[in-house]
């Protein structure tokens, strides 16, 4: 029973998908937006259950669950981000789809299944389950991406996403096979322990090959350069609420699993023999994503494509955050995931869903050419939509007092604190890239507020659901920027649970009420490190850092601390 309770957020989403599918048959044409509210309500129930689990965690008991799924702060945090994006996307779709002549309830059930897959992905600790979660999420999205039948870009978006996604899945499977060949296990925590302990039976080439294959596969899902080619086309061709979901939830889920897999494996001593270390690989992807994403964003004229390149650039900043850990960058203070990364993903997901949401509500009457001149004068014609666009885009650009600013500041600062000697040039590059990005973000706002509307400006779809979603985006973005304390604490405990193998956690989690969850490897006692740290060549001596305090805001106001 308590196992069912632990899995209830995911089960609630799956049930929502089935319920909506059944209700779709009973609902007549033209009344489908009602299903969006059912879907959003299902996601809200699931979110409430996830929040309850976060407050009072339940351990997993059944033998087939331990080592396969983990209900920990990491999973719970990203479940929340995914569900939030899902609710907002469902509400936006309620207004958008009828206007585009897409009268089908299947969008909502597929959205619910995609959310289910994403949740399975972030709570999976077994590589096969992880793969299945990724496939459930992606398969539903391939269909959703091709949803706009009238548009010539829709088929291209669907096919492109399907083929490239299939290749990425093949890479992931091959990486899993290599890992299984090297360690004989599919349980990520056990693999992490085996690799960290080292040993004569583990073939270094297999582990190194697995690492590269997994990074390629997950790099595709997070849209990092050079695996980004699908992103602008798919984002442009997909129905805009689906694009919002892809940019928000899918990126969050993919980053959650990327951080978990790479960081759990990265402590393997055998990886030290690689010509190009895993850390350098991630750093290379990060730098390429920041530079290419922002530079190509400048030359775009379609707002959806601008936001797609913005999403690529944000993947670059986030990869820098994933990189700044002990195992990848030699940062002695960060044993697990950098604590700024989950918060950044939350702020980014909300802002990007908001920006795409405004575009969704501008898709009047089947046509959806969203080049910059068509949104000219938006601020005057539709002040509410204009304000939502302003808040979302400024948050993506990282201007105070919005969530995006705090997230970016926190991320860059934490990266610098983690690896002061190595990270400085890359953080400078990231800041410069953000300044370049300001150009295209402000260009959107320039058109929206200071240009005279042309002959056929984009008209807004009137609708309660979309307005509600955008209002929520604006409020949340402001809250994240002004009163982020609670979210920063949550982000920290999520980050500390990211690495699966318990031997990785040297410093205990801070004793906050939300973080009191040792049930991550439920059912099995915490495993001590096999080697004393002094004998392990990969673990550098710990820098005497101050104990992490629950009020993370303190770290924010002492930038000179390093």
């Amino acid at each position: 029973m308590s196992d069912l309770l632990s899995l209830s957020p995911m089960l609630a989403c799956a049930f929502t998908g089935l319920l909506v599918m059944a209700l779709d048959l009973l609902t007549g044409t033209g009344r489908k937006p009602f299903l969006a509210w059912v879907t959003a309500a299902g996601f809200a129930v699931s979110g409430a259950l996830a929040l309850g689990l976060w407050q009072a965690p339940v351990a997993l008991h059944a033998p087939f669950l331990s080592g396969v799924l983990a209900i920990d702060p990491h999973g719970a945090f990203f479940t929340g981000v995914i569900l939030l994006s899902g609710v907002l996307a469902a509400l936006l779709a309620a207004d958008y789809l009828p206007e585009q002549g897409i009268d089908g309830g299947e969008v909502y059930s597929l959205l619910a299944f995609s959310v289910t897959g994403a949740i399975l992905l972030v709570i999976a600790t077994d590589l096969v389950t992880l793969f299945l979660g990724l496939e459930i999420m992606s398969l539903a999205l391939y269909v959703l991406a091709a949803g706009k039948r009238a548009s010539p870009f829709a088929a291209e978006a669907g096919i492109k996403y399907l083929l490239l996604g299939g290749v990425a899945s093949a890479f992931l499977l091959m990486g899993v096979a290599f890992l299984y060949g090297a360690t004989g296990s599919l349980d990520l925590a056990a693999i992490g322990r085996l690799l960290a302990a080292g040993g004569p039976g583990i073939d270094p080439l297999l582990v190194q090959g697995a690492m590269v294959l997994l990074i390629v596969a997950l790099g595709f899902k997070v849209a990092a350069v050079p695996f980004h080619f699908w992103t602008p086309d798919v984002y442009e061709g997909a129905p805009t609420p689906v694009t919002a979901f892809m940019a928000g939830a899918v990126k969050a889920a993919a980053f959650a699993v990327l951080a978990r897999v790479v960081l759990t494996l990265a402590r393997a001593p055998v990886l030290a023999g690689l010509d190009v270390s895993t850390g350098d690989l991630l750093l290379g992807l990060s730098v390429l994503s920041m530079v290419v994403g922002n530079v190509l964003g400048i030359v775009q004229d379609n707002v959806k494509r601008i936001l797609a390149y913005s999403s690529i650039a944000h993947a670059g900043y986030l990869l820098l955050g994933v990189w700044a850990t002990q195992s990848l960058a030699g940062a002695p203070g960060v044993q697990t995931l950098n604590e700024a990364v989950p918060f950044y993903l939350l702020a980014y997901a909300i802002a990007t869903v908001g920006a795409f949401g405004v575009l969704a509500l501008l898709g009047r009457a089947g046509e959806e050419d969203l080049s910059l001149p068509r949104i000219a004068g938006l601020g005057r014609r539709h002040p509410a939509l204009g304000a939502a666009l302003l808040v979302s885009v400024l948050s993506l650009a990282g201007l105070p007092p919005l969530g995006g600013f705090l997230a970016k500041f926190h991320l860059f600062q934490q990266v610098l604190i983690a690896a002061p000697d190595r990270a400085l040039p890359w953080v400078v590059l990231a800041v410069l890239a953000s300044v370049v990005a300001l150009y295209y973000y402000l260009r959107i706002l320039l058109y929206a507020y200071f240009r005279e509307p042309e002959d056929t400006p984009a008209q807004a779809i009137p609708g309660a659901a979309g307005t509600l979603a955008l209002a929520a985006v604006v409020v949340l973005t402001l809250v994240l920027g002004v009163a982020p304390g609670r979210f920063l604490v949550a982000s920290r405990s999520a980050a500390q649970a990211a690495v699966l193998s318990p031997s990785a956690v040297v410093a205990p989690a801070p004793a906050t009420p939300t973080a009191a969850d040792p049930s991550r490897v439920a059912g099995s006692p915490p495993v001590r490190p096999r080697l004393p740290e002094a004998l392990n060549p990969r673990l550098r001596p710990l820098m005497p850092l101050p104990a992490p305090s629950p009020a993370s805001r303190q770290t924010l106001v002492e930038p000179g601390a390093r």
Partner: protein
Amino acid sequence: MTAQMVVFWILAVTSVAGALAVVLPPFGRNPLHAAVALLITFTSLAGLMVLLSAHLVAALQVLVYAGAVMVLFTFVVMLLNLRRQDLTGYRITAWKAVGVAAMIALSVKMGIALTAGLSAFDDPATAAQVANDFGGVKAVGRDLLTTYLVPFEATSLLLLVAIVGAVIVARRRDGGAA
């Protein structure tokens, strides 16, 4: 060289040759020829799985891939009703050359990694495990419903999504019923 090794090499060569024939001219130019070449690969793989004592997987490989999937491919190719002039225009571009070079490099790397890493199969413990009903219906079924119950159940959701998705994509453009 044991008889097993002889069979292995025959199957290995035919499976790789079949896979190459799928994408390379002259067979790769004609979809139906490519499908037949793929059939050779599928069957050879089934043989390799028998050599690995994975009898159930070998049977499923023949039934599902060499059987059902191949019939599906053939149907689709025939329904597309391609004419000869549709099949021309095979050009070697710089991107394709880069892709082929990367693929060859990756194959060589993976081959080296695999040959180095699979010494575990010489282990007597592995042989003892293989003798114990390994790869049969009973053993796979037991594992599927105990150790791998969560992936097993998740697969049902995956198949549901695939079916729903296929129906939606295949539906007529006017939005009518399937």
